[in-house]
């Protein structure tokens, strides 16, 4: 009895992960977001074994990292949370001796407001929120927020708008020329009025509607680029537009944690994903765009040059990064949103 108990305890303690010759790397990432092919290539090149642990939201990741004792090396938060991680000292600066290829990052993503000069982070995937339109029904300009906010007659009553408060408010605020966290009550009042006037033209406020678009239930709406691409691949008449007045752009960024147990391995991994062929593997898996020069070449046929993944030159400047607004501003947005949903 005592022997079996002893063996059991030993087996329990012995089931900790054992290190390979080159060491391990512990990646803490969003669920279903890391390409197994890319990890296999990394292990083949460096001999480092990689474990992936999932989180389902930026808040969960932040709470666990703040607590300490997590054992992870790399975390991949969204752009709105990157400044929080940096300010709280939870991540460390990239090692210039190991991470040598930061020049591979696309120029538009090289000097970003949430990490000027890319001292701490490397792009993982990025995406936008824009409008999706059935071009068989409407043949006008689709690069405008008028599709959802001042709907043309052919599309009235045939639209779906994703019920994401941050995306809808952002589009409406940019439409009226404001900054994301503006406190200008004149602009916010206009935003409220525009949204309330636009709402009768919307058929639904739903998530998860790829099937509905393909089935012909909607002819347009506000949508994320990844989902819009999936719609277009099943129903070619749909096109994705970038509102010229301003559209939200988001990016998930890989960073090395300040107390990472395998710091050098983590730096090597970040340099690895700066290579275009590896970034393409991430894109093929996650079905979004990476931020690396030449990153389209390794992508699957259907994704290369897809309008949802490549922003037209003249509309690049209209992309606005998200911001975490002060509580008073959030309260106003919440009030407008509640009124809209009633």
């Amino acid at each position: 009895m005592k022997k079996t108990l002893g063996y059991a305890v030993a087996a329990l303690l012995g089931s900790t992960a054992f290190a390979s010759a080159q060491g391990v790397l512990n990646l803490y990432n969003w669920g279903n977001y890391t390409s197994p092919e890319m990890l296999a290539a990394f292990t083949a090149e460096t001999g480092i074994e990689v474990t992936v642990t999932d989180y389902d939201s930026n808040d969960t990741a932040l709470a666990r990292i703040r607590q300490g004792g997590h054992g992870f090396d790399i975390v991949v938060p969204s752009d709105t949370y990157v400044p929080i991680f940096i300010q709280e000292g939870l991540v460390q600066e990239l090692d210039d001796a190991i991470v040598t290829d930061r020049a591979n990052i696309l120029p538009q993503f090289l000097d970003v407001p949430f990490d000027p000069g890319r001292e701490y982070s490397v792009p993982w995937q990025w995406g936008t929120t824009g409008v999706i339109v059935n071009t068989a029904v409407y043949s006008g300009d689709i690069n405008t927020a008028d599709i959802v906010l001042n709907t043309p007659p052919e599309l009235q009553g045939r639209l779906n708008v994703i019920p994401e408060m941050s995306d809808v408010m952002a589009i409406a605020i940019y439409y009226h020329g404001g900054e994301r966290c503006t406190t200008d009550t004149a602009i916010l009042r206009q935003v409220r009025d525009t949204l309330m006037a636009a709402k009768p033209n919307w058929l639904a406020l739903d998530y998860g509607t790829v099937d509905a678009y393909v089935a012909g239930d909607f002819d347009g709406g506000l949508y994320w680029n990844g989902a819009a691409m999936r719609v277009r691949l099943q129903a070619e008449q749909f096109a994705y537009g970038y509102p010229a007045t301003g559209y939200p752009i988001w990016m998930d960024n890989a960073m090395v944690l300040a107390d990472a147990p395998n710091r050098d391995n983590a730096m090597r991994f970040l340099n690895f994903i700066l290579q275009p062929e590896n970034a393409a593997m991430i894109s093929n898996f996650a079905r979004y765009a990476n931020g690396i020069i030449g990153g389209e070449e390794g992508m699957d046929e259907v994704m290369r040059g897809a309008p949802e993944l490549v922003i037209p030159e003249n509309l690049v400047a209209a992309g606005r990064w998200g911001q975490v607004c002060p509580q008073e501003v959030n309260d106003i947005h919440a009030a407008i949103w509640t009124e809209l949903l009633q």
Partner: protein
Amino acid sequence: MAKGFNVRTLPGFGGVAILTFVLLYVPIVILVVFSFNAENSQTVWHGFSLRWYEAALANEQVREVSIRSLWLAAVSAGLATVLATLAALGTTRVGRFPGQTMIYALINQPLMVPEIVTGIALLIFVAWIKIATGYTGMGYMVAAHTAFCIPFAYLSIRARLETMDPALESAAADLYASPVQAFRYITLPLLVPGIVAGFMLGFVVSLDTVVITEFVKSAGQETLPTWMLGQLRRTTTPEMNAIATLFLALSLLIVTVFFLITRTRGR
């Protein structure tokens, strides 16, 4: 003679009962039906196919997390059942003793406190120990799951124990059996249905726990529920339905056996 009050005679009883069952089970039925969908859609039926089950069983990640979940559930339920048996034997059929209410509260605490609160408390506590000792193995998960499963096993064993006649142990003592022998030959065999039922309940509960596992897991320690939670943030295919159906079938099997064991065993 006046008829006793029977809720079944109230108007609308049948309707409300049917509505309740529909609301509870139709989503699950839809989940199971679409796991057999021939095309990659969770809302439009395209025909019957087993492709998602093949994909799920071939998926290496799914296999790894499933095995880890099952191992963790078995070990935690086993430990929890042992501890719960000891607890039940100590607190049942012994009359009132000082601290009785507090002990019940302590043992049943995971049932009463919201799981998120337990999860965050464990996050802080486990993080502190990790920093102090540097150990990052499965020990934390086993400990957390065991603690969470104890009340389920305890209540099941206690219920069985209360229906046992204490005269049996007295008779054994009269026949010169020592307390240990009385336990081994009389109490334990009669208690086995309760213990097995407690183990199975603990097993199912441990398989199911998301919140605590999400906060306590270390690198590379995904269990099936946390893995599936991670998948949900991005698009899901009917492969999720297939995995969910397989585990639903496993849980149903376990609960059915639990029911059969506890139904009519002994007095």
